[in-house]
């Protein structure tokens, strides 16, 4: 490199720019070479396996749409939700999944927004200290946290023992294996994914704008609804997208905390695959993937959420 530049000083201008162009091309080729291992790896251990699995939804046992037909029937032939329902149980599972994802997203926003707002309004050092309380659960495994909720909500769990000891109840309440337990656990697990992007956006809001609005006579509530809230919306969109997509694919928490009727799509797919209905499992996976990607595109294209997952860094 060093010798090249001294050579170039004496070379004619055209030859010099041609050499620069060549050097720049070489540089680009080098970058491409750096990219090749990761891309080849991801195709081999992610892209190809997922694509091959999804094609099974059309090819197994024979080519055709037969794996999607159970989804379109008025009633399902397989028992999914414990008892046979007077409707298509598979569609019901998609409905349950969407319902859980929507409710969990709503409550994480409801609980997460004030926390992010409060943390963004204090000094950075104080906020970092409080943020540790958000990050400890964030870094703890989902399995461990789901187990913790089993300990709290179980038939002989801590909450029931407290209720019995205090005399408020004479017999234990059914808390575990209910929809409420699924909501409680999932909101707990996904809350940090809402707080982190919200906080990142709120930290970036210029406080002078709020002060200016106040000086111009806006009441505090108006400062919030007309200045702060609109400016924080990118964080709201990013957090909601992240939580909603993660909630759609949840498996561990509903399986441990939910009852027989709280079946989410991931659990149904697992069940079908373990019963060797590979084609139907793949068809369900395809529908789930289309839902997740559809929502992702909706948010990124329509709402312009950028770098959602980068902003979720701790």
């Amino acid at each position, binding site marked *: 490199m060093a010798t090249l530049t001294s050579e170039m000083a004496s070379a004619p201008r055209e030859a010099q720019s041609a050499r620069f162009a060549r050097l720049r091309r070489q540089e680009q080729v080098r*970058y491409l070479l750096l990219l090749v291992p*990761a891309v080849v790896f991801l195709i081999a251990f992610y892209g190809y396996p997922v694509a091959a699995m999804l094609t099974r939804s059309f090819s197994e046992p024979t080519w055709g749409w037969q794996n999607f037909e159970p989804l379109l029937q008025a009633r399902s032939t397989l028992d999914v939700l414990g008892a046979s329902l007077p409707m298509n149980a598979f569609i019901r599972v998609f409905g349950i999944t969407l319902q859980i994802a929507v409710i969990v997203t709503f409550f994480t926003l409801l609980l997460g927004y004030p*926390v992010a707002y409060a943390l963004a309004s204090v000094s950075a050092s104080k906020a970092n200290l409080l943020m540790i309380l958000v990050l400890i659960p964030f870094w703890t495994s989902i*399995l461990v946290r789901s187990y913790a909720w089993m300990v709290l909500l179980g038939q002989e769990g801590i909450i029931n023992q407290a209720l019995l000891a205090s005399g408020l109840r004479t017999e234990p309440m059914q808390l575990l294996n209910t929809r409420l337990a699924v909501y409680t656990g999932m909101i707990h697990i996904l809350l940090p994914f809402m707080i982190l992007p919200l906080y990142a956006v709120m930290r970036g809001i210029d406080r002078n704008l709020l002060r200016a609005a106040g000086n111009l006579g806006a009441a505090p509530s108006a400062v919030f609804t007309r200045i702060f809230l609109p400016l924080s919306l990118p964080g709201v969109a990013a957090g909601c997208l992240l939580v909603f997509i993660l909630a759609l694919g949840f498996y561990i928490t509903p399986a441990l905390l939910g009852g027989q009727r709280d079946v989410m799509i991931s659990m149904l797919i697992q069940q079908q695959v373990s019963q060797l209905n590979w084609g139907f499992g793949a068809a369900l996976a395809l529908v789930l993937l289309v839902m997740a990607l559809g929502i992702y595109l909706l948010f990124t294209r329509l709402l312009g959420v950028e770098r959602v997952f980068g902003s979720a*860094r701790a």
Partner: protein
Amino acid sequence: MTATTPSSALPRAGAAPVPRHAHRARTRISWGRVLLWVLVAIVLAYLVFPVFIVAPVSFSSAKYLQFPPPGWSLQWYENYFARPGWVPATFVSIRVAIITTILATTLGTAASLALVRGRFPGRNAINSFMVSPLVVPGIIVAIGIYFFYAQVRLVGNPLGLALAHTALALPFVVTNVSATLHGFDERLEYAAMNLGANRWQTFRRVTLPIIRPGVFAGALFAFIVSFDELIVALFVSGSGAVTLPRKMWDSLRQEIDPTIAAVSTILITLSIVILLAAELLRQRSERTRTATWVAEEEELGVRE
């Protein structure tokens, strides 16, 4: 400052034109703030309380869950070491996580350099592809890998599990390293190369030290992603690669005795230690960065 001095007799800019209703507004805000912080305290308690409830259960002397524990004992920790499966599963998890961390960090750092610096067609598409394992639900990747491994006979192989985990961990490395590369001054590399360093030396001695916080954060994520991963492990760990989450899952489905509380307490302690270490590292890197800025500014004469 006393009232007799002329300077303080002048109305101060902020204090003078206080409208009458501002006082009422202020008291209302402070009530609002009290309410806000009460709510924050409740939410933070909800976040942290379940994580810490596991520890007292793990030290309990009772076989069944009792709270507060009737007495203290270490029997569940003894169980963890004595009962078959737990310690081997821990070692499998550690091995798989280390392989994952090395692979994902190397591949991901190289790819990030290309994705941030390179100018070639399809760059955005490749970037989206590399980050997509974050959006694709875990069960989809898991059964894809399962069908694939059933064909190539990698089910029950720890290396196979590590390869699958690497695919899941790559996005975390790429986003973290890319973020640090975006703020990187490439002229530092040109300077090094002008001074005679070759490309590898430049990377080792100039680039890597600067992007180290990002690489380190990415590696940490990769380790945790692999160490905590359950869904892929459920399908492909077979009997030869039973990881700690897999072992915990199996015993959770049979009976809940406090052995799992003991394992959970160990894992929670581990994540707190890792979190504190990361926080300390972040603070240190911030301090050195500020120190460099101060030195630069002093050199330029900005600061006195």
